[in-house]
């Protein structure tokens, strides 16, 4: 089934934040933000801006009615700079004007007197200064000290990984509209309506019940609008509170890129120990996360790095530590994978390093160490592993050895073009690692005309969650999908929601919707029982708009049944609550069972590097992916393809560049490059893992949002293998010394060329 929004999308009729019709009297906001990354804010000069045409009000930190604070996890993030500025792009003042142009013009007239303070952009420097967001987090399994002494081979090294700009095509934005009794309604492009509601409540000092947050859909989120949508909603809310007029702010692209955080860059150290049979016996790693200036979601991102530090391998002795390091950059935040990809890259680098030195293929080491059923993760959960099955099914279908041989043959005769192949197994845990967040609610109304309305806490952002919610209701009531309408995500209808994140929205909200629909269905069957003269409700089913008794269609149709229920004063509505069973985690012991289940997969990536120019093309990604049992292949396959390409972007051309003063140099689409249609793999082919194992996913259809992004890591190692193939046969004059490139992602064409000839 196609995404239900497809038709209005292609006709341009879907409504995004900037498309909402404006109310008369709407003011437009624009932020004046810090031109430097760190300093004492001595004063803000607004008198010139105040005199500009159309300017209604200029708001500074002191004007905020509630608390000047929007930090979600830790209260360490002022909405507007007060005494100090902490990153370039930090909001200092809000201009409200009658038109957007006037607001922008006036914001440019504001100046700030700032006494510069030292700027730190390197997480290792922040670590050396002991400037951490939260205390270090550690996982320990077995005894690495003893284990390393007994290892046949031990290798240690360092990796660098850059950040990633979300580049949702719809920028951040919000629209606040005053309501009665001092309350307000906020339209927000957010993955976390409740997070917005909390942030607005804090800055306005209004109770949450005075604040309605409504989200129709996002033009992309990818984690970037999980917590970072809060600021813009809070800005509009503060404006509305002080003026009692509607206030809108839709960011320009360069404002968005400058003022919002990105995927966390990491610098990491690793040490890997293997026995003579290439079994990984011991692994140590230290992760230095570049958190930016405030916590945002850095602590849970950091934790997920540890949760995924061994990827899909069983390693009996593991000691890992992770540090969330404070730098003078915008607060880095959630991004598809949420720290997991960063952890997985490091173990893959360690394996590649060992393979380089031992003269074997990395895949030999990878395969020997795949998780088996019952193997213990470093955090105590036991694996229900599909690692081996996805690997062998991928190999069976795509024949890794043959692909490698084709590349080797090609490389023998090609002077400038070299091919590289790499395997990338993945294992990704599904659930919020903060156990309490694994809850959701769904409100289902069945109307007497037979139509069904569903509201959940899930936010539609292209991932098709609304389509899946509609499928759940249509399935339970056995109705055509057109009978079900999934409505906006709204905090008055669904309260205390978890953000749409962690790949878990379809599971959590789908299960809640399932429960609500089943409860209504149960009541309806009781109403039907005497009408169809059935013996028991167990005999009654709803099928294609009719009540069936023991599988036999009766004359009682859906419509009549509903009206009968209404006349009998039976509720046709249900609000259901779902909490994932069986999960827990204790940071005291750093052990537990945090994930409802894991998603597995194995991808083979092939690339061709143009060793004359340093360019590359991705020839193919071929994968076996563990969908469980997909409830919507059109939607899920789209997630796989999109995830792979986004992961490849992160590993190849996407380079976030800050200078030493903390200024973003890759500050527009002209300087920050995401994949275009010509740069994606020529071929993406995947097969669903064939498995009958039960899981906790909605309809056994495993979460699919984040895991495929990590297949993209394979592109990095495939490019690296192609470079190695060139350098193995490099002519003397290229100056090549060590044939093994360092682990420094992304592999931009610059790094490729410098590695080929440097």
């Amino acid at each position: 089934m196609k995404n239900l929004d497809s038709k209005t999308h292609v006709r341009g009729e879907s409504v995004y934040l900037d498309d909402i019709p404006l109310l008369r009297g709407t003011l437009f906001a624009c932020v004046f933000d810090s031109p430097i990354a760190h300093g004492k804010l001595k004063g803000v000069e607004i008198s010139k801006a105040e005199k500009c045409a159309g300017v209604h009000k200029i708001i500074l930190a002191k004007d905020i009615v509630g608390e000047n604070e929007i930090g979600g996890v830790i209260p360490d993030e002022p909405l507007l700079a007060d005494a100090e500025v902490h990153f370039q792009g930090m909001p200092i003042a809000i201009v409200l004007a009658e038109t957007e142009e006037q607001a922008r013009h006036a914001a440019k007239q504001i100046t700030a007197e700032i006494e510069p303070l030292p700027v730190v952009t390197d997480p290792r420097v922040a670590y050396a200064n002991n400037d951490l967001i939260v205390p270090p987090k550690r996982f320990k399994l077995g005894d690495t000290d003893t284990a390393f002494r007994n290892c046949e081979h031990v290798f240690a090294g360092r990796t660098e990984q850059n950040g990633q700009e979300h580049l949702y095509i719809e920028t951040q934005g919000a629209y606040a509209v005053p309501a009665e009794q001092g309350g307000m309604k906020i339209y927000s492009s957010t993955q976390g309506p409740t997070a917005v509601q909390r942030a607005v409540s804090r800055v306005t000092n209004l109770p949450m019940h005075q604040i309605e947050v409504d989200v129709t859909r996002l033009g992309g989120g990818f984690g970037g609008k999980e917590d970072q949508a809060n600021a813009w909603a809070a800005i509009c809310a503060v404006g509305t509170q002080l003026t009692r007029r509607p206030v809108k702010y839709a960011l320009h692209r360069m404002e968005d890129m400058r003022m919002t955080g990105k995927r966390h860059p990491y610098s990491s150290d690793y040490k890997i120990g293997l026995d003579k049979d290439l079994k990984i016996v011991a692994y140590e790693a230290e992760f230095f996360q570049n958190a930016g200036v405030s916590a945002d979601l850095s602590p849970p991102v950091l934790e997920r790095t540890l949760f995924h530090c061994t990827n899909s391998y069983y390693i009996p002795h593991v000691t890992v530590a992770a540090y969330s390091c404070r730098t003078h950059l915008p607060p880095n935040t959630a991004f598809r994978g949420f720290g997991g990809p960063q952890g997985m890259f490091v173990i893959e680098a360690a394996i590649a390093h060992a393979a380089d030195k031992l003269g074997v293929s990395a895949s030999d080491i990878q395969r020997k160490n795949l998780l088996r059923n019952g193997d213990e993760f470093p955090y105590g959960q036991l694996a229900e592993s599909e690692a081996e099955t996805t690997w062998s099914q991928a190999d069976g279908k795509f024949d890794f050895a043959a692909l490698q041989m084709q590349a080797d043959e090609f490389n023998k005769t090609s002077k400038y073009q070299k091919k590289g192949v790499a395997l990338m197994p993945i294992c990704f845990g599904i659930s919020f690692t903060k156990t309490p967040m694994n809850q959701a609610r769904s409100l289902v109304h069945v109307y007497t005309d037979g139509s069904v309305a569903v509201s959940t806490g899930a936010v539609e952002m292209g991932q098709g969650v609304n389509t899946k919610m509609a499928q759940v209701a249509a399935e339970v009531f056995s109705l055509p999908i057109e009978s079900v309408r999934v409505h906006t995500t709204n905090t008055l209808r669904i309260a205390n929601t978890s953000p749409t994140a962690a790949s878990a929205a379809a599971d959590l909200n789908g299960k809640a919707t399932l429960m609500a629909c089943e409860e209504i269905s149960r009541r309806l069957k009781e109403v039907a029982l005497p009408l169809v003269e059935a013996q028991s409700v167990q005999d009654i089913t709803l099928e294609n708009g009719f009540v069936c008794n023991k599988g036999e269609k009766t004359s009682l149709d859906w419509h009549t049944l509903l009206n009968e229920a209404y006349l009998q004063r039976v509720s046709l509505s249900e609000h259901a609550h779902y909490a994932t069973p069986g999960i827990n985690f204790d940071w005291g012991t750093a052990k537990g069972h945090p994930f409802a289940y894991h998603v597995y997969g194995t991808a083979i990536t092939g690339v061709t590097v143009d060793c004359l120019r340093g360019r590359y093309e991705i020839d193919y990604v071929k994968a076996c992916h563990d969908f469980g049992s997909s409830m919507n292949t059109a939607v899920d396959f789209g997630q796989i393809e999109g995830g792979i390409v986004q992961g490849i972007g992160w590993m190849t051309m996407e380079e976030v560049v800050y200078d030493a003063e903390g200024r973003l140099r890759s500050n527009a689409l002209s300087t920050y490059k995401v994949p275009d249609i010509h740069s994606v793999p020529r071929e993406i082919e995947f097969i669903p893992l064939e498995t009958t194992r039960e899981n906790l996913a909605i309809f056994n259809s495993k979460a699919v949002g984040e895991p495929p992004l990590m297949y993209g890591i394979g592109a990095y190692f495939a490019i690296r293998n192609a470079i190695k193939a060139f350098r193995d046969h490099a002519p003397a004059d290229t100056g090549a010394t060590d044939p093994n490139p360092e682990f420094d992602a992304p592999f931009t064409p610059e790094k490729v060329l410098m590695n080929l000839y440097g």
Partner: protein
Amino acid sequence: MIKFILNEQTTETDLPPGMTVLDFVRYRKDLKGTKIGCREGDCGACTILVGELDHDKVNYRSMTSCLMPLANAYGKHIVTVEGINKPDGSLTNVQQAMVDESGTQCGFCTVGFVMSLTGFCIDDAPKTCQAAVSSVDGNICRCTGYKSIERAACAISERLAVGSGQWAEDSGQSGVQGNLNFAIENDIVPSYFSGIKDKLIDLKNGADCPPSAAHRQLIAGGTDLYVQRPEEMAETSGNYVFDNSDLRRITQNETHVEVGASAVVTDLMVSLVFVRLFPDLYKHLKLVSSTPIRNMATLAGNFVNASPIGDMTAWFLALDAEIELSAGDSSRWMHLKDLYLGYKQLAKTEDEFITNIRFKKDFTHFNFEKVCKRTYLDIASVNTAISLRVEGDIISDAHVSAGGVAPTPLYLTKTSEYLRGKEINEMTIAEAAKIIQTEISPISDVRGSEAYKRLLLRQLFTAHFVELFNM
């Protein structure tokens, strides 16, 4: 007063001629299907179709409305998605293909793709899968990974190709390629498109004069000015020269090719003169920005912008092109390479503007190389072009250019000089590559480090000879 046809309706406005078409359609006409992604022509979310009268037919090209001044809409047919949507709510065949292949996820970029693909259906491009995919080379999607869009594009092109599929059969015509009537009959664009030609003719006849005046600021395609100074451009009015067809002609005589200064990159791509002179024309020009930008960006704009990494500047420098500068009634010719004095400093008066470009046809070999972070739709880290006249094994004339390695677009005087009279062999190339390093002064920036740019130019210079002489 600016008069044009917006979708089905003739419209006129006295809003500032510098206002972008994007702001006009979204915020003045409430046509919200056209989205804002970047406002610098780099994402394609605001792609529209622009129909222009060309003798007896209307040519449609895709353009990014964020960089297009209202003045450039004058006398044209501006088509937004609302202008192709079917009133009964059903989908056009392009829209249906995007739905069928799940080519839309969050939907924000989708309309841009739909417009580009619709443009592909009604333009003169060959109806191949490759050309269909290339038509969306200016559209960025962050959700799908493009494979589904690729499938939709190929499905569309297959159905357009004659002899296969329903569209072709229905049309009852043979040899149809992107024909407008065909597109109307086959649910690609609505039927009112058939009346647009006459409306445009009426518009042209009844028109007072285009909204251009004695302003100093020349504005052609707007693709750079609207990126660099958007607010200023929106508020002020200038001398809009994009539509001056005298400035877009491509002609040749025995010895020279002459190109009007307002010719856009696409004009070169479809020019038979160029196609014959440059066998790899399509391959090379595909490396230059994207389809909508190539439809808007003029050669003279590229030259006077004086960006050190202008692709077309590098191209024409290597042809040792001359430019005609005009001011009032006087004009003079000069070599393009003499235009650049320093960073964004030009050897011309403020009143002079480029009217013509000409270059000699006597080269035997030409090559263009460009490397950037993303191969397509990106600005070069380093680019370079070369033209050679080769007699036997000997280079009798040579011109080499390089971009991204100095404060100005660079004509490599010493390197070119060195190559003349030399035999083509590895020693010549190696020696010339050394001379190049003495002529350039790259700096480290977001497009690469100094060391990288030096190495890259060496490599790309070598690539010229690998490409041209299979070395």
